[in-house]
């Protein structure tokens, strides 16, 4: 069931549940009624039996005399459905209603109490039987006294009761289902309201869901409001970044336009014009590169739960790339990272942080580049150093100022440092510049214990 109506589900559920409950009630009440009916009929038959026994006598020869039968006229109407019979050793007396038939004898009857049972009777009918062994006064032998009522009468009463009850319960079911429908309508009304408000939210991102929802729906509306706020922030940030990128491209485009005009005017030395074009292209490339770095940093803000990077192999692989470059192959790399060191970022993110720093270090190094790492008090510390000229504290401060646009960070250490800073801060780390014992720049990266993993 892919598409379903909540209303239909609730209604169907209520109708089925009420129906089942009422059906069970019908069965139980019918059974109770039957038991009650049997008890009542048994009592009536016993009253008739006492009348019968009062007029019963047996002489010494065993011949049974009934002075006066029970008063109910049905005993005197043949096949009326109400019968009595007294069975002695040698003689059987019975009501006129039995005509020439007899009730079946019973093995279970005793002299202690009246017993009831159902049995096949004369005229092909089922009978409800009441029976007991009785010793009339002045007689030595006991006689079996049986009274019977046609079961059809019981069944008729039961069926009548069951039908009336079923009609009543059906009406009750309809009424209860109607009540359930009203309940569902009332209960779902906030959702209809919610749908209208969500439609409004879609048309206007600044719109929010109102606060007057039932307590059960409120967590949902609050979550939707939070989501809407987060999305609005994302969209605003994305627009800002698109604008930044566009601004970053405008200057190179203006430079290209200027070069084009110069060339058309014929007043430009081709070499100078080509240099100008190259400068503009480089500026555009830097703007694009910076935007890509920022996009990567934004992506790494959402670190996967099980992210884990081993700094040693990451550093080694980065060095194996740098060793391929003309400058990189002339540099001596000192790697001092424990094999077991682990950091809770992805290997890709760590590569994007260490990569630019190592590239910078190689660019400015004279002979040596050192990359070191250690775990201290549960914190993870990584450092990249070179023996180059280092940077002045002014440049360092500028490179580290928050919010410096990456593409404005310029040449030198700037762009690489700014990219690394974006990445490190996106993963919850800190970055600091200092002077290396090798003589050049030292960049320290640190992550607090929650980012460290024991390897």
């Amino acid at each position, binding site marked *: 069931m892919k598409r379903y109506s909540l209303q239909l589900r609730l209604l169907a559920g209520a109708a089925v549940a009420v129906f089942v409950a009422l059906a069970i009630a019908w069965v139980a009440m019918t059974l109770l009624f039957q038991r009650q009916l049997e008890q009542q009929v048994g009592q009536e038959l016993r009253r008739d039996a006492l009348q019968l026994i009062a007029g019963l006598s047996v002489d010494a020869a065993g011949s049974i005399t009934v002075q006066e039968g029970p008063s109910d006229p049905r005993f005197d109407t043949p096949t009326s459905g109400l019968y009595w019979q007294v069975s002695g050793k040698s003689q059987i007396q019975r009501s006129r209603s039995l005509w020439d038939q007899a009730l079946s004898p019973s093995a279970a009857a005793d002299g202690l109490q009246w017993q009831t049972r159902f049995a096949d009777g004369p005229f092909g009918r089922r009978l409800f039987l009441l029976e007991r062994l009785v010793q009339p006064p002045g007689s030595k032998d006991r006689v079996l006294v049986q009274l019977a009522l046609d079961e059809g009468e019981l069944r008729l009463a039961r069926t009548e009761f069951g039908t009336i009850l079923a009609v009543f319960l059906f009406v009750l079911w309809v009424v209860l289902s109607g009540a359930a429908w009203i309940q569902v309508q009332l209960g779902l009304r906030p959702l209809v309201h919610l749908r209208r408000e969500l439609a409004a939210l879609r048309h206007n991102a600044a719109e929010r869901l109102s606060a007057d929802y039932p307590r059960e729906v409120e967590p949902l509306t609050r979550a939707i409001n939070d989501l809407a706020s987060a999305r609005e922030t994302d969209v605003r940030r994305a627009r800002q970044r698109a604008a930044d990128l566009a601004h970053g491209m405008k200057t190179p485009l203006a430079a290209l336009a200027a070069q084009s005009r110069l060339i058309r005017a014929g007043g430009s030395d081709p070499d100078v014009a080509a240099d100008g074009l190259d400068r503009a292209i480089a500026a555009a490339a830097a703007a694009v590169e910076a935007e*890509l770095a920022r996009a990567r940093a934004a992506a790494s803000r959402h670190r996967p739960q099980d992210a884990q990077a081993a700094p040693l192999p990451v550093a080694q692989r980065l*060095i*194996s*790339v740098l060793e391929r470059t*003309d400058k990189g192959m*002339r540099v*001596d790399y000192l790697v001092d990272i424990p094999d077991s060191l682990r950091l809770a970022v992805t290997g890709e993110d760590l590569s*994007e942080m260490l990569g630019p720093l190592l590239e910078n270090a190689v660019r400015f190094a004279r002979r040596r580049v050192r990359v070191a790492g250690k775990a201290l008090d549960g914190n993870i510390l990584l450092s990249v150093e070179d023996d180059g000229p280092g940077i002045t504290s002014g440049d360092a401060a500028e490179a580290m100022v928050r919010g410096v646009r990456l593409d404005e960070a310029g040449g030198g250490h700037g762009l690489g440092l700014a990219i690394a800073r974006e990445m490190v801060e996106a993963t919850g780390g800190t970055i600091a510049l200092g002077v290396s014992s090798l003589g050049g720049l030292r960049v320290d990266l640190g992550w607090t214990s929650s980012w460290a993993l024991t390897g």
Partner: protein
Amino acid sequence: MRALVVEDDPDVGPDVVRALEAAGFVVDLAQNGDDAWFKGDVEDYDIAVLDLGLPRLDGLSVLKKWRANDRLLPVLILSARSDWTEKVEGIEAGADDYLAKPFQMAELITRVRGLVRRTAGHAASSLTVGDLQIDTRRMTVTLEGAPVSLSQLEFRLLNYLAHQKPRAVPAGELAEHLYGSNEADDTNAIEQLVVRVRRKVGAARIETKRGFGYLLTDQRT
């Protein structure tokens, strides 16, 4: 010098070809992965400039197929992507250098020349000194058959000593070769480097000839 340029972009490809031809190369251009793999597999080039985003067969797969077939020509990878993960992947697949787009043509020519220079004269790609085996093309060293983990600088030191054998090489000359210049405290740096290499291949293999320099020997201990 023969060069293979693999680039599907209709502007960039011919541009690179023109620049390399101006730099004195004889250049073939392949515009898809299949063609590139075939050309690199049957022709002998001194260098390949390989774009990663190619139709039919991507650049990294072309490179892996060449290397699997023992085609050891130096390869410079070009890619529009600039992330380090891809650089590492490229180098580990067997590339020799990596250049991100957009690049300056002069930079490309410099890199290509550097690669050709580095791999030139390595036709005999293996050199044996005692039980030390130096693969100059793959830049790996094995000792009694077991690989020795050396950095580039350490490898180049060992390789240079092997090529100069049986001449002892002064520290100054080593610095000149390894760093491209020779400055005041470089002798120190070379000394430290030699200590590290000795630790990896056995101390007796690099002998210090007082007054002459360092000499690679066949000795084991």
